[in-house]
C-alpha cells in the first residue's frame, strides 16, 4: 500500500511540475504549485502509517502554510493585474537582461 501511494504522490508532483512549465497563466501556475504541495501531503500521510502521527502533524502544518501563501500570492497576482491588465506571463517581462 505504501509504495503505491508514494508512487501516486510522485506522479502528482511531476504533473504539478509539468503544469508549471507549460502553462502561461499566473493563476493556473499557482494552482499547479498547490497541486505539488498536495502531492507532498499525500506522501506524508502515506508515510505516517509507517512512522506514526508526526507525518500527519506535518500535513496540518503544510496546509496552513499553503493557505497563507495562497492569500499573499493571489494578492500579488491582483496587484500585477491592476498594472498590466493581464496575468499572461509572457507579457510580464519588464525586468530582463
Amino acid at each position, binding site marked *: 500500500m505504501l509504495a503505491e501511494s508514494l508512487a501516486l504522490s510522485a506522479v502528482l508532483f511531476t504533473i504539478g511540475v509539468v503544469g508549471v*512549465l507549460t502553462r502561461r497563466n499566473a493563476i493556473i501556475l499557482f494552482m499547479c504549485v498547490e497541486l505539488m504541495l498536495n502531492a507532498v501531503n499525500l506522501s506524508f500521510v502515506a508515510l505516517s502509517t509507517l512512522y506514526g502521527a508526526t507525518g500527519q502533524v506535518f500535513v496540518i502544518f503544510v496546509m496552513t502554510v499553503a493557505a497563507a501563501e495562497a492569500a499573499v500570492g493571489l494578492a500579488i497576482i491582483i496587484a500585477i493585474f491592476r498594472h498590466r491588465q493581464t496575468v499572461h506571463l509572457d507579457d510580464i*517581462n519588464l525586468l530582463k*537582461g
Partner: protein
Amino acid sequence: MHTDLSASGHPLSDTVAALAWLILLLPLLGFVANGLLSLTAAAHPGPADPSADHGHGDASHGHAHTIGHAADHDDAHHAGRHPAAKWVSLIGPGVLAVAFGFALVTFLAMRGAGEAIHAPYVLTLFDWIPTGALQIPVALQLDQLSMVMVLIITGIGTLIHLFSVGYMQDDPGYPRYFAYLNLFVFFMLLLVLGASYPLMFIGWEGVGLCSYLLIGFWFSEEANANAGKKAFIVNRIGDFGFLVAMFLLFANLGSLSYTGVAAGAAGLEMGGALVTTICLFLFLGATGKSAQIPLYVWLPDAMAGPTPVSALIHAATMVTAGVYMIARSATLFSLAPAAQLTVAVVGALTAVFAATIGLKQWDIKKVLAYSTVSQLGYMFVGVGVGAYTAGVFHLMTHAFFKALLFLGSGSVIYAMHQAYHATHAHADAQDMRNMGGLRRYMPITSSLMWIATLAIAGIPPFSGFFSKDEILAAVFARTHHSTLAEATWLGIPGSVVLYGVYALGLAAALMTAVYMTRMMLYTFHGPNRTGPAEQGHLREAPWIMTGPLVVLGVLSAVGGFLNLPALFGGGMSEILHHWLEPVVGEGTLRVTLGEAAHLSHATEYALIGTAVAIAVIGIAVAWTRLKPAALVPVSESPAEQGLARTLLNKWYVDEAYDRVVVQPTLGVSRTVLWKGLDTGIIDGLFVNGAGFLARGLGWLGSQLQTGRVGTYAWVLVLGAVAVLAGFSFR
C-alpha cells in the same frame, strides 16, 4: 689576487712616478674647468612654470645670447668668438703641456732606474668594485710600454691642442670643444695607465664616448650626429668582444689585473682552445676600436668631426688602443698562434682593402682616413706576428707623420675656408678638385706634407721606412722556425700564410705610395682650381697652427732613429727594442722559439731593397700617370664610372651592412617582435582576448535572462534534474 711588489717596495716608488695619478688628474681638471666655462656661459635657467607657453613673441629674446650652439655647417666661421675663449685657450693646451712635462720627468726617472726595474710599478688608488672573489681596485700600472704610450699621447696631444687653438678659436662651442678634448685625453691616459683589464675598459669606453661627442660636435647637422652615433655603436660591438674576453679571463684565471693574468697564463697550454678564444675576443674588441675589418666602417665617417679631432683621436691615439691592448696581452697572444695568425691576416687584408679605397677618394680627409685604416692594418700585422716592438714602433712613427698629414690638411681646409668665407662662396672646402697648386700659396705646409708623404711611403731615411720595413722583415723572419710557421690557420700552414701576409704588405705599401702622391699632386701641384676670386685670399695658416706642423715634421724625419735595425745603427740600434724588453720580451721570444729572430745580412739587404723599390715605383707611377692639369672643380667634374665609382663608394660596404644587418633588425623588431608578438599575440590574443571572451560569455548569459517566468522555471527544473542526477548516479 695580484700579489706583485707592493707599491712601496718598488724602486720607482719614492721618485716622481708616485705622482703618476697627477698626469691623469690634469686633463680631468681641464675638462671640468672648460665644461663649467661652457655651461655657465650658455645656460640660462628657464621660468618657474615650464608649461606656460611664452608665445612666439619673445623668440627674439632668444637671439640675445647667440653664443649657444647655433654652430654653422662645417669648420670655423665668424659668428662671434666665445667670451671665455681667452681662458679656454690657456687651460686646454696648458693642462696638457704640464702633463707632458710630468710624463717626461717620470720617463727620465724610469730611465734613471734602468736595470733595477724588473716588475711593473703598480700604484693602487682606491677600491672600485670589491665583491666576493672579484676585487677590482682603481690602480695605475707604470711600466715601459705605458710610459711610451703616455709620452705619445701627451706629446702629440699638446701639439694638436695648440693647433686647435688656432683652428677652432672662432667656433661658438669653443669651451665645449676643449672640454671634450681634455676629457678624451683623460680617458686615453686611463686606458694606457690602467693596471687591469676593467680599468682599461673604462678608458676604452670613455674614449669611445668622447669620440662620439667630438665627431658629432656640430650636432645641428644630421650627418655629423649620425656619424657620431655610428662610431659609438660600432665601438660598442667591439666592446662586447672585450667584455666577453674579460668574463673568460675571470671565470678561468680568477683575476683581471695584468700581473694576475700573466701569472695565470703560465698555466694555460700552448695553442689551447681557451687561450685562443680569449685572444680572438680581445681581437674583436681591438677591431672595433682600431677600425679593422669588419668594424672599420665608422672611421671614415668620423671625419665629420673637426680636423684636429681626426688628427688626435682618429689617427694618433684612440685608434692605436687596439694595438696597445694586444701588446699589453703579449703573453696571452703568444700562447695562441692561431689567434696571432688571424690578427696578422685581418691586418694585412685591411691594409690592402683600405688602400684600394684610398686611391679614388676626392675628400682630402677621407684619403687620410683610409690611409690610417691601412697603416693600422700594418701595425696589427706587426703585433700579430709577435713582433710587438715593431708594432709599437710603427704606431709611434705613424702617430708622427699621420698627425702631421691631418693637421696639414687642417691648415689647407682652414685656408680654403678663409678664402670661401671672404668671397661668400659655398663650395666644399675639403674636396681636392677645388684645390690644386696650393704649393705657391702655402709653401711651408706643402713641404712639411711632402716630408710626411715620403715617410708614410717608406722612403729612407724617414721614420716610416724603418718602422714599416721592420714589420715586413719580422713577417719574413717568422715564415720559418717560429710557432706561427708550425701552426695552421684554417688548414693553411702558417708559413704559407705569412708569405701571403708579406705579399699583401708589399701591395699595400705600393698603393700607399700611389695615393699619397696622388693627394699631394692634386692638392699642391698643377693649376689652382679654387677660383680666381678666392686665390687672392689663400695664404699660409697662422703660426699657432704651422708651429706644431714643423715639430711633427722634424719628428717624422728623425723618428726612425729611435729603433734602427742592428744592420745600420751598431751601438745606437734597437733602442726601443731594449726599452720594451721587460714588458714584451718574453712574448716575442716565445713566438720565435726561444732565440731572437735572425736574418742573414744578405736577406735583410734584399728586403730593404725591395721595400725601397716598391716605394719609389709607387711614387713614380703616380707622378707620371696622374695629370693634375686635367682636373676640373667639383661643380663641373663628371660622375665616376666603373671601378672608380665602386672605390669612391667604398665597395658599397656601408650599404651592404645597412641592408644585411641594420634594416632586418629594425624590420624584425618592428613587425615580428613589437607589432606581431607584443601587441598582436600577447596583448591581442591573450590579454584582450581573455577580456573579450569573458564579456562574450557574459553577454550570452544575460541573453538567457529573458524576463519570462517560464524560462526561469525551465532553468530551475533543468538544474534540479542535473543535481538529482549528480546525487543518484554514483
